[in-house]
């Protein structure tokens, strides 16, 4: 048909800071309604905003990761409109002079690299929350004044696939950069999608879709909207510039309102706040302290020998990655330690309803355990038990191994004695093996391993067993 989707994104990201953007209230999620407020974020008459410097630092970090040009003299403006959850009747934002503009992020889609351009990044404050319950409207102002950056992309996307890939990469950058925790379900990352269709170089009117709180919903909504617009165009109808809402229970789009133009917001400068002056030294300090980009971190992990899925598993869990790195720095066994963490530790955390930031044992304990296994002092199976016990008692792995009688037996005469005993208890199996039934050996090995509870090196045990049976056969 020649129609091509043209998609752009406006992403609101809540920043990780100790306090809100313009007052001293803690920047914390999940508190009881209207308990995390003060006269300033309630907009009481006479109150004034004061900029939290950390907000600027976080915004600059994001701008650097996205290769933007930073405006060293940006300033704030007022976006004026009336809504119950907007306490001052205006939102403090940056309309005329955003802190950064003109950046990009390269994404990998279908094996090819595509550059998504960033139009601007600006700082603004969040508004309160409107809650609809039992036919009533409730206002919770805890979120009022929470610091945000808004990232606006150019309309470079042509598919939902590209959009999702971009968001995944962006989220990874922001999480590992310590800028935001990007939890879509909690609203610390909110994505508005602008969609239009172009035909032979001419782009049509665009619609805005809001209220998308998961990657899945974003994908479905884009798909639906492209379908809808194509259908209208095929019927010869035109697209109205509207704001649409995605209903995630019915998986449907519905019209929220006609799109407001910037004129309606009467933007003018926020005189209560002086311009943000960023000098060279401030910028330099931030650049020097900037955490490594995800691409760099992934490179390092790959060099350690981890496979792509393993690398991604660590990238998806920042706390686990941090813990992992600490373990590796003590004892460099990338593969083994990864398996412990992603396998056993993750499982144990889940059982106890903990997350990776709450691992109850120190990284060096994991390293100690790895050393024991590597030195064949403890059987890998036994190691799992020791790990579980460590979670409970926090004791050193060696102590636990001794307590539970899991330390490997490497005294060959002791092993011989033990196996001798077992062979004597299972004469039929010995006979069968001599006759040539190899399955019998497997049975005997099973008994030995169970009896010794993994404390004997299986290879060694197998050799000794065969040796003993053979010598028995030779007729002692």
């Amino acid at each position, binding site marked *: 048909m020649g129609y091509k989707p043209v998609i752009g994104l406006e992403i609101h990201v809540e920043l990780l800071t100790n306090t809100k953007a313009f007052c001293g209230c803690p920047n914390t999620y999940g508190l009881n309604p209207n308990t995390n407020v003060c*006269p300033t974020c309630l907009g009481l*008459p006479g109150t*004034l905003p*004061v900029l939290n410097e950390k907000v600027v630092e976080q915004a600059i970090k994001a701008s650097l990761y996205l290769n933007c040009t930073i405006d060293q003299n940006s300033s704030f403006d007022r976006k004026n409109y009336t809504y*119950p959850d907007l306490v001052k*009747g205006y939102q403090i934002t940056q309309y005329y002079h955003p802190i950064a503009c003109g950046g990009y992020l390269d994404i990998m889609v279908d094996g090819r690299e595509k550059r998504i351009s960033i139009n601007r990044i600006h700082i603004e404050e969040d508004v309160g929350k409107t809650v609809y319950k039992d036919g009533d409207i409730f206002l919770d102002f805890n979120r009022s004044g929470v610091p945000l950056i808004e990232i606006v992309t150019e309309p470079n996307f042509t598919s939902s696939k590209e959009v999702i890939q971009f968001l995944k990469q962006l989220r990874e950058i922001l999480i590992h950069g310590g800028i935001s925790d990007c939890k879509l379900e909690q609203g610390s990352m909110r994505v508005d999608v602008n969609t239009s269709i172009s035909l032979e170089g001419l782009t049509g009117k665009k619609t805005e879709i809001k209220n998308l709180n998961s990657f899945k919903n974003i994908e479905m909504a884009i798909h639906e909207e492209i379908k809808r617009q194509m259908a209208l165009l095929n019927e010869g109808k035109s697209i109205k510039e509207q704001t649409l809402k995605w209903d995630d229970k019915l998986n449907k789009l519905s019209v929220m309102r006609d799109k407001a133009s910037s004129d309606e917001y009467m*933007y*003018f400068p926020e005189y209560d706040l002086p311009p943000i002056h960023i000098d060279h030294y401030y910028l330099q300090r931030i650049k020097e302290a900037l955490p490594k980009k995800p691409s760099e971190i992934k490179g390092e992990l790959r060099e350690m020998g981890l496979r792509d899925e393993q690398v991604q598993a660590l990238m998806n869990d920042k706390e686990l990655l941090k813990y992992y790195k600490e373990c590796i720095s003590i004892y460099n066994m990338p593969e083994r330690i990864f398996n412990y963490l992603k396998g056993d530790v993750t499982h144990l955390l889940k059982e106890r309803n903990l997350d990776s930031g709450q691992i109850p044992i120190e990284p060096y304990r994991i390293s100690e355990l790895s050393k024991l296994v590597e030195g064949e002092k403890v059987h890998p199976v036994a190691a799992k038990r020791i790990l579980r016990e460590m979670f409970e008692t926090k004791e050193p792995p060696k102590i636990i191994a001794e307590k539970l009688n899991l330390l490997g037996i490497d005294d060959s005469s002791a092993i011989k004695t033990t196996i001798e005993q077992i062979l004597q208890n299972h004469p039929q199996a010995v006979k069968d093996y001599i006759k040539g039934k190899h399955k019998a050996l497997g049975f005997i090995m099973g008994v030995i391993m169970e009896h010794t509870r993994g404390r004997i090196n299986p290879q060694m045990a197998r050799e000794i067993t065969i040796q003993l049976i053979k010598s028995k056969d030779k007729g002692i």
Partner: protein
Amino acid sequence: MYIRKIHNLITKKTISCVELTKIYLERINSIDNGVQSFLEVTKEQALMVAKKVDERVANKEEIGILEGIPINLKDNICTKDIKTTAASKMLENYIPPFSATAYDMLSKSPLLGKVNLDEFAMGTSTETSAFKKTKNPWDLTKVPGGSSGGSVASIAAELSVFSLGSDTGGSIRQPAAFCGVVGLKPTYGIVSRFGTFALASSLDQVGPVTKTVEDCAIVLNAIQGKDPKDATSVDINTNYLDSIQEDIKGLRIGIPKEMLPKETEADVYRSFQNAMEKLEELGVKLVEIDLPHIQYGVNIYSILAYAEAASNLARLDGIRYGDMSRSEGLGDEVKRRIMLGTYFLKGENYRKYYLRAQRIKQLITQDFNRAFEKCHCIASPTTLSTAFDIGKKLEPHIMQLNDLLTIPANLAGIPALSLPCGFDKNGLPIGLQLMGNSFSEDVLFRIGHSFQMHTDYHLKRPNILKGVVDYGI
């Protein structure tokens, strides 16, 4: 003179703070029936603070110069746990949970109460107050000026030793001139705006209303300074009394012809000329300067200030304050300004009006900068006329002309002081306005104080005070 004298009475134990406070409370009880300046009298609060000061005096502790001095505040300045209404129905029962920084800095001065103003500081006569009309103590049929009408009337009637008002386009100075008291609009940023209801954030300043220039300097010393809660406040700690006694020989005072238009009343013009002659006697040199762009002052003020006010008042959304809609809670003048302010910001008007007004504002600032290369201070009458009748019901844009001479200082952010310099044929006060470069309040005080040491306009008292003891003498 006034504050210092009372301070001495306190430290010498000639009178206790509690006695002093009671005397003022008594006066408010009787005299304010006629003047109608107080909206709320805070007797308990005042006596409590007074008592504490007396205890310190009894303990032979050193008392700061403003400790125990009874004051009042314009009712758009927040006082914690005490009603702050902005003279508006919408906030009739509003009790702020915090105090303005300027008030915090005067915490040892007993607060006698909150005084009347034009609703939300919008007006030039204190007639738009939703609660009462304050009268001019010199003639109870005349307005005290506005919007800080309650502040100036209460000081003129000696119902408090000093007050704090707010000035966006002349709201301290114009009424100060009408009521024969001293009023200062400080350089933008010297006094914290935190806790004072914002009208136009880029123009507002809180300032003292006093009987004398020296008192004004004493109060400014106490309320100046950087406030972490106000990002526009400036880190400043000048002692404005340091140079106030110095003579003013050799200082150059510029007189702009644009501030002596033909509309100036004859008596005002004459008083101003006399004042200039007096200053020349004291060694000042008068120079001619011009401020070509201030003729646009009133118009661009109307655009810029109303636009900001419309935005600042948007928070009174009819949900959280009072049990009423904005239509019910806000008065006509407030509504008018909100509508106009919104108009000037909408769509194309932003470029047509607002941005243009901003550019002219810059030109006015440049006019002043150029002028201050030639002189230390610029003088003009504070107003074109003396106090007019209550209920005159002039057109709003005519009312705005009351601020013609005061608006430019707000637009340029520079300090401006009004002090009494005469009376018209009906005995109504006339004000002299002195403007200086940013942060040159000390020069204004020096000139003003010198003037007051050689004149006695500031010592005259309205007839309603016949027989009432003057604690300033």
